[in-house]
């Protein structure tokens, strides 16, 4: 019985911080994110055999966390809208282009923004993002390319 818990503990230590960041970003509330993080690892303990067979353990955990987060959002909308949540990051002597970039990211289509965040913020590979979102890897690549091109366009507009 304790073997399973110790195995889950090692997963928690390895992937917990990234999952917590993701859940905080998704739900917009720290306490909700922490509760969902615990629930994610309860699910992980119940499905350790399946995790072992998964292509990527990290992707599997992100899938569970994403489902739990989306369900939580359905029950209660976040108190801080996403655009404000991204834009409200405290800035101390930062690059003046960062603010327009945050706005540009916030205004990206949701699917593109989600893929971009998984790649740049959580460090997931294309394949892992595809596993989490349940789409082909080509779709992930396409979304990321569109997102980057969109950001470049916005950045050029701001610079001009």
């Amino acid at each position, binding site marked *: 019985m304790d073997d399973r818990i110790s195995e889950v503990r090692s997963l928690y*230590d390895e992937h917990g911080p990234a999952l917590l960041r993701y859940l905080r970003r998704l739900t917009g509330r720290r306490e909700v994110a922490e509760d969902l993080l615990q629930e994610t690892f309860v699910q992980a303990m119940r499905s350790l055999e399946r995790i072992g067979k998964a292509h990527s353990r990290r992707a599997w955990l992100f899938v569970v966390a994403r489902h739990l987060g989306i369900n939580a959002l359905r029950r209660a909308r976040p108190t801080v809208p996403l655009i404000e949540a991204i834009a409200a990051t405290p800035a101390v002597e*930062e*690059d003046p282009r960062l603010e327009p*970039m945050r706005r540009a990211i916030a205004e990206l289509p949701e699917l593109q923004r989600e893929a971009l965040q998984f790649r740049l913020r959580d460090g997931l590979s294309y394949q892992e993002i595809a596993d989490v979102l349940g789409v082909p890897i080509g779709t992930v690549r396409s979304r990321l390319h569109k997102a980057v091109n969109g950001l470049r366009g916005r950045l050029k507009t701001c610079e001009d």
Partner: protein
Amino acid sequence: MDSETLEKLMIDRALGAMPPDCEILLAAYLETHPDAAAECGSIEQAVELARQALTDGSAATLPAFPAERLREAQRTDWLWRMTRAAAGIAASVVLGFGAHAMFFPAATPETGMSASSLIAVHGPEQRTEEIGEDAGFWSGERLREQVAEAPRQETTRLVWDSPVRVPRIRGAS
């Protein structure tokens, strides 16, 4: 190289998703194509800015490992498994009785007659035939015959003490 393909390769490189051997080939290509190199620089700058914009300075403090919650979940799961197993066994028993009743139907008593009241008794006329013809009705010989035959007068009963058992006849020779 096709400009669209080149752009895709440059974005993959900026996102850090390009295999090392492809990266070497792309770097070699960019060395000889300054326009493409300038565009590549622009893409990498945009991706780097996006990376910085997405990185919030606040470090997420990981809460303590929820060991107690996991143990509680394990206990709940165990109870749930046991309950399901017990329910499965109970369902199997009920199905077993049902199948038995379906494939081995028990004999049912006649309508209007309860199983406990079904008693077969030898009639007195039968006994008179067994007693000698020359013995009178009030004779001592006849009385002795009756006493001697008393055990033979035991009743025959239809016993049906369970709905799932075949009824049996008690007292039948």
